[in-house]
């Protein structure tokens, strides 16, 4: 897990953006200079650029659309993305890749950088989300992501949850799929992401072999869970 470049992908609503931000904080806390690239050209809602100010407060450099175009539905990528990739000052570079294989295609234009510098490409999987509800679906998604991005997926981040209906039983049921998937595809599970507010409830059932990654949900307005 010591790659400089980490690419976070996955299906719509799998928790990519939450994890990307949390991971950026996580690495920043370790003392690394972190650059976070919002490459979500598909979905203008729930994007990490909305949280850019808070991230900046923690010394994380966020690059997305050109300043002034944050609210334009123009997927204009900033040339500063090159800067994060090129400048060794940034010890960790995290890509938050928007929606599905389609969003992953935008990675293609940076392909030479990944090819030479190396990368880790993790996908978020929530077995309770459409598109990753069984091994077959998830396998297809991974294949498509790899084709579109011209990159290889190197890790799975579990994000097993049913929102506020999550229970330890539900979590364990989801784990079965996650593990089958990991075994079938020979892709390791690198983290089990857990929302902080459910951590106390879930930790007792999470097998010790897993690294648990607690995340304070930032993107979801509190009123949505009232």
């Amino acid at each position, binding site marked *: 897990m010591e790659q400089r470049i980490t690419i976070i992908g996955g299906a719509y609503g799998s928790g990519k953006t939450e994890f990307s931000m949390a991971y950026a904080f996580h690495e920043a806390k370790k003392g690394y200079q972190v650059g976070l690239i919002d490459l979500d050209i*598909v979905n203008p809602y729930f994007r990490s650029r909305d949280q850019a100010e808070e991230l900046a407060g923690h010394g994380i450099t966020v690059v997305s659309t050109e300043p002034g175009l944050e609210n334009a539905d*123009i*997927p204009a*990528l900033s040339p500063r993305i090159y800067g994060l990739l090129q400048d060794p000052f940034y010890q960790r570079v995290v890509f938050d890749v928007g929606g599905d294989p*389609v969003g992953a*295609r*935008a990675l293609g234009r940076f*392909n030479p950088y990944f090819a030479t510098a190396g990368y880790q490409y993790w996908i978020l999987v929530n077995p309770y989300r459409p598109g990753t509800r069984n091994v077959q679906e998830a396998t297809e998604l991974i294949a498509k992501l790899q084709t579109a*991005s011209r990159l290889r997926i190197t890790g799975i981040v579990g994000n097993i949850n049913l929102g506020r209906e999550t229970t330890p039983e539900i979590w364990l049921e989801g784990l079965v799929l996650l593990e089958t998937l990991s075994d079938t595809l020979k892709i390791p599970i690198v983290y089990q992401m857990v929302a902080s507010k459910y951590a106390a409830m879930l930790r007792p059932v999470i097998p010790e072999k897993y690294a648990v990654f607690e995340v304070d949900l930032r993107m979801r307005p509190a009123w949505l869970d009232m």
Partner: protein
Amino acid sequence: MKQVFGYPESLQTRPNHYCPGCTHGIIHRLVAEAIDELQVREKAIAVAPVGCAVLAYNYFNCDAQQAAHGRAPAVATGIKRALPDRIVFTYQGDGDLASIGMAEIVHAANRGENITVIFVNNAIYGMTGGQMAPTTLPGQKTTTSPYGRDTATTGYPIQVCEMLSTLKAPAFIARVSVHDPKNVLKAKEAIKKAFEYQVNGKGFTLVEVLSTCPTNWGMTPVEALKWLENNMIPAFPLGTFRSLEEVSK
């Protein structure tokens, strides 16, 4: 030493917002150069589309009107009829011109409106995130043709120049590309000619410019230029489809 290549006056100095390596920037510059060379900047009025070029009024150093999706030729018609001595041009993408705005472009062409249309064809919807365009190539994968464009259910890429050339009224219709320096020069000549026709009151002119979208195509800008050359040009042959001079010969 003399400057042989510099910044056109008809382009504002503010940097454009396009993704690195997007050929919109080249086409903007060619339009500005043509306007400069014909010395019509003060008379020029641009009509910006909905699409990646929606902010074109921020880049062209002339008056501009921003139009609803596909309606630029109608807006240009209104302006030109109100101000016949001004030089009015639209700058439209493939979704804008060849899908939602098909009626507007066909009829502006058919009326022989004395306007110039710069039609930027990159075979994809860039602005909304890479959906299928009317000019998407058969088999090409986009966000709304995830299995590749299936001609059996979505038809074939629309060849705008060929189609408009069946009309009697247009004065000049050409398709050019900007994938290499030689073709950029040719593109410039065509664009300048189109504006020249307008200055001389010859009627409707359209230049289709094959362009890239590195981001949505998922390629480096240089790879995208190659892809354009190898894939788009066979589907959209370059050339002059209508020129009054040739007709009169």
